[in-house]
């Protein structure tokens, strides 16, 4: 493969990684603060994609319907997530982990079927929004404009979230709770409220990921489980609860995918799991995580 091909393949890997970073970061955030592995994260991502499709359809006469969807869809998913947290998740925080897994698993089933009820089982295509459709051509290099846009989204979200954690009051409170919940509670923070806020933020990211990916792949049933397994791999590799870990993990995952298929075409599905096993055996808390 020549240099041009390698660079394009590199860009492919980065764009794959950045897309999945947006989704994985939500999962990591929720686990880091609430200590809950939200199995329904993929379902919320799927909800985001379907909402994007629906909003784009409803407002297709309006120009820029995708951008409106980009604003509203994650918001709706966040609100939906908030109500789940308030009504259901709160009751099982102090229970066995198995109960948490089963509750969030049950949500996968419920959300998945509600989506089927509302939108059917068909393929739902969302057009790539202007001005991002079509290829970007530069000196013989061809790469989709939309994927370039996605590559930019990753670092923007990363920096934004980092700044939120570092500089805002909410971020400081979140970090305090993550380190020592009892102490934060004792000092007067409304832990319950922050939990809801963090969960909503995580869901917002899931919805954002779904909305952004909809023009690329279309909204279809089954997309939730594929992405969930990939997210597991990334948060394990990067470290559960770590923002930079999610970023690095996604990057590695994107690279492994892009170049792995060149070297071992048939082992594509196994890569992620082998990576996961290696990390869990050698350094279970991931690259950027802290040992418990």
């Amino acid at each position, binding site marked *: 493969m020549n240099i041009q091909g390698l660079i394009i393949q590199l860009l492919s890997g980065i764009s794959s990684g950045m897309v999945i970073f947006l989704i994985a970061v939500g999962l990591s955030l929720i*686990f880091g603060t609430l200590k809950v*592995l939200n199995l329904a994260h993929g379902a919320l991502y799927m909800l985001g994609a379907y909402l994007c499709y629906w909003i784009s359809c409803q407002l297709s006469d309006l120009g820029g319907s995708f951008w409106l969807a980009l604003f509203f869809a994650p918001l709706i998913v966040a609100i939906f997530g908030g109500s789940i947290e308030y009504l*259901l998740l709160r*009751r*099982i925080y102090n*229970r*066995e*982990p*198995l*109960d948490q*897994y*089963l*509750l969030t*698993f*049950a*949500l*996968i*089933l*419920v959300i*998945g*079927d*509600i989506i*089927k*009820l509302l939108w059917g089982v068909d393929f739902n295509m969302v057009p790539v929004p202007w001005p991002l459709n079509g290829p970007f051509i530069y000196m013989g290099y061809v790469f989709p404009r939309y994927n370039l846009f996605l590559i930019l989204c990753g670092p923007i979200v990363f920096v934004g979230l980092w700044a939120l954690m570092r500089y805002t009051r909410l971020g400081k409170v979140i970090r305090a709770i993550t380190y020592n919940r009892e102490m934060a509670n004792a000092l007067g923070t409304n832990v319950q409220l922050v939990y809801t806020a963090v969960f909503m933020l995580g869901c917002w990211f899931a919805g954002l990921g779904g909305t952004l990916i909809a023009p690329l792949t279309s909204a279809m049933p089954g997309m939730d489980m594929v992405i969930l*397994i990939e997210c*597991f791999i990334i948060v*394990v590799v990067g470290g*559960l609860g770590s923002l930079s870990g999610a970023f690095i993990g996604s990057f590695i995952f994107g690279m492994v995918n892009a170049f792995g298929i060149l070297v071992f075409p*048939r*082992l594509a*599905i*196994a890569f992620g*799991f*082998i990576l*996961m*096993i290696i990390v*869990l*055996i050698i350094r*279970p*808390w991931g690259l950027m995580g802290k040992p418990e």
Partner: protein
Amino acid sequence: MIKVIGKGKTGRLSTWAPIAIFLFAGLPFVLPLSWLSLLTEMLILAIAATALNLILGYAGMVSFGPAGLYAVGAYTTALVLIYTELPFWLAFVAGPLLAGIIAIVVGWFCVRLTHVYFALLTLAFSQIIYTILFGWYGFTKGDDGIVGIPIPKLLQSIPNYYYFTLIIIGISLAIMWMIVNSPFGKTMQALRENPERTEFIGINVRVYQLSAFVISGFFLGLAGAVFCGFSKSVFPAYAHWMKSAEMLVVCLLGGIYNFLGPIVGSLVYIFLDKIISDFTHYWPLVLGLVIIALLLFLPGGIAGAIAGKLAMRSDKG
């Protein structure tokens, strides 16, 4: 809520067991074949779920990957039957044996971790098993699966295989019951409640957990082998995480702190699946709502709720 399993049930067991055996043995004479077939499936799932519950309810280890070992059992039996001329009983025994051996290897790595990391590693291993079954087309026939597996003429009719399954589940449950009521089983429960304290009194936590994992794996493989004979076919889907999720749900439905819980759970699950699927395409929605309802209102599962009621009644009486 004190989670002591099996207390006070030994007395009841000796009265109920022969009645249950009599009932189950008589069913082929009253049930139509399709229901008998469904019942056999339910019994096989019950073996698998009870095996899973050995580590789930008793040892407190949440595994996301029981389906991997179940599939190893099923495929081993299948592969021996189609590639060699060895007799059925040998192929049948090879299933759980190989599952147990693989459980030693997988378990050794997994028990070094706890909680969510343990769960994720078990998931990763079972997905690797799935990948091997799916990808090694030349040997395992990959996505096609293996169909038309030859089983002895005696076992080919539905009622006969039902009796075979009944015998196997009877023996398996008896063995597992003895294990959980042995000192080993009691230690496992203590370990679940308080690992630090148990370690403090000299118990090697890792060894106990690994042993439980291997025993569980053996019986999971056994369930797989029985299912292989039942459906005369095996598919990579047997190792998929959806199957693992099914087993976890079954344990939850019935109640993980009760020996009979998984059995009750599999009965209810298969029954619900059949009834509801006949009415609606939205079986997952119903199942999801049922799980949520159970988690919020019946934390001990169905068996737990019944056991609770019985305990209350015996208190009053």
